[in-house]
């Protein structure tokens, strides 16, 4: 998947998202915050405007698409790529894992795997400031940043 970003001086920014085949989604974000979404199915033809939405509505649509309210895919299979080869992954902690119920400092996960826990999602809470004495509990979802290799090691270290 590729996303191209271009400046529209005086208007805002344009993002072109490659969908399947010749299909492209063109999103124009105005400086006012308004979004316009176009679909392009033929490069020779004009982009067809699908809809426009205010800043607020767009954010809502965005989080629905992101899966904030309903996520049919298990979090184990989701990964987000940052720049270069760095990924963010989500790990579900189950009761039988050896990390459950232990503190971060005794696990030495970063030293051994190279991956870093950046947040823990626990029930409705999101724990953002992870310290050495933070305890990992069963039912947590760990948000971890690291290279592919570090993520693989991290996954092994959990069990």
């Amino acid at each position, binding site marked *: 998947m590729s996303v191209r970003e271009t400046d*529209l*001086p005086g208007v805002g920014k344009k993002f072109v998202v490659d969908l399947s085949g010749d299909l492209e989604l063109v999103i124009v974000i105005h400086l006012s915050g308004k979004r316009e979404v176009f679909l392009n199915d033929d490069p020779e033809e004009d982009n067809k*405007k699908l809809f426009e939405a205010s800043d607020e509505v767009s954010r809502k649509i965005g989080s629905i698409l992101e899966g904030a309210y309903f996520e049919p895919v298990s979090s184990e299979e989701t990964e987000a790529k940052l720049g270069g080869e760095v990924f963010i992954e989500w790990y579900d902690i189950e009761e039988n894992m050896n990390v459950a119920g232990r503190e971060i400092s005794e696990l030495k996960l970063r030293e051994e795997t190279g991956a870093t826990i950046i947040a823990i999602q626990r029930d409705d809470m999101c724990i953002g400031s992870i310290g050495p004495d933070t305890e990992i509990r069963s039912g947590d979802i760990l948000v971890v940043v690291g290279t592919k290799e570090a993520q693989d090691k991290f996954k092994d270290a959990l069990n």
Partner: protein
Amino acid sequence: MALDSALLEIGLMFTALAGGGVLSRYLKKSVIPFYILLGITLGPYALGRSSFIYVGETEITSVFLEVGAELGVIFLLFFLGLEFSFEKLLSGKKTILKAGFIDLFNLVIGFAVGFLFFGGLLAAALIGGIVYISSSAIITRSLIDLEWIANDEAESILGILVFEDLFIAIYLALITAFLLEGTGNLSNVVYSIVIAVAFILFLLASVHWGSGFFERILDISSNEMLLIRATGVTILVSGLALSFGVSAAVAAFFIGMAFGDTENSNRLEEILEPIRDLFAAVFFFYIGSQTDPSLLPAVAVLISGATLATGISKLFTGYFGGKIYGLNKRRRIRVGLSLTTRGEFSLVIATIAASATGAMANSTITETIPAFTVGYVLVMSILGTLLMQYSSKIETKI
């Protein structure tokens, strides 16, 4: 004090402008020509010739209009600077530069037309600038209204406009030096150009090294304070520039550029947009009100000639500019059609000509050229939007 009649006149002006806005929306045209026409109608040369009240009758109203119009120019150029960035100009395989250079052909055509008609170099240079610069305001609005904004041609059009913006900032600096210089002596003109260039270099240096300072000025959560601070700096520096004989508009452009590099630039744009729109409306009204319609027949030939020559030349330079961007034939035609629209910046040049005080100022510079510009912009702003609206028919014919 005739404050009561001043308020009546200003109220009449804004109410009429609001009515013009309604009409322009109904007719799906740019609002700028309506503002200008209202200025002509309600100003001293039309309504003023009747016994009825007119806008600018009271001394304080005409001073208000003049200052308001100058603020309109300052904010228009400030916004150009805010949205301008050298990175945009120099990025993307230098396509903007190449297309921009082709676009400069219009300046040559305008210069030739002006020289043929007036026979003077300064008048020719003014006509050159007036017909060269396309209207960012009208074109950008139309791109959004016609839903072209997501298309490839929009990038090329906006790119060429960015080049024009920088060019016009330099052009205004130089032409102001000529127009405001008192003696007409060549060495004095060179001296005032040196001052203008030095002032611009000083502003550029402050943009470059003063980013921390600009960042700090704007780093405030209160919108009210942000508005007041930005307005204060912009008008103060513009006034300082003008007192040195340097174009206030150009100073505003560079201040805009400095603010554009800060983190708060988008917020600033949002807050200042209504202020710009308000004073820009006053500016268009003012320039209309300064136009004596009885001067228009005398420049009708020049207006028709310039419309024909520079309409066609913009079509061609736009077409070949679009080719540099790798657009297909249809989209190239659209670039050409869009860029034929002229507007606010042609009028900015005309106001500077009208206010010329230097030794080279004569009635050609201060009256005929501004009247020509008003007529030319009325034609080209309407023609340009029409060409864009009917582009699909034109594309299939060519």
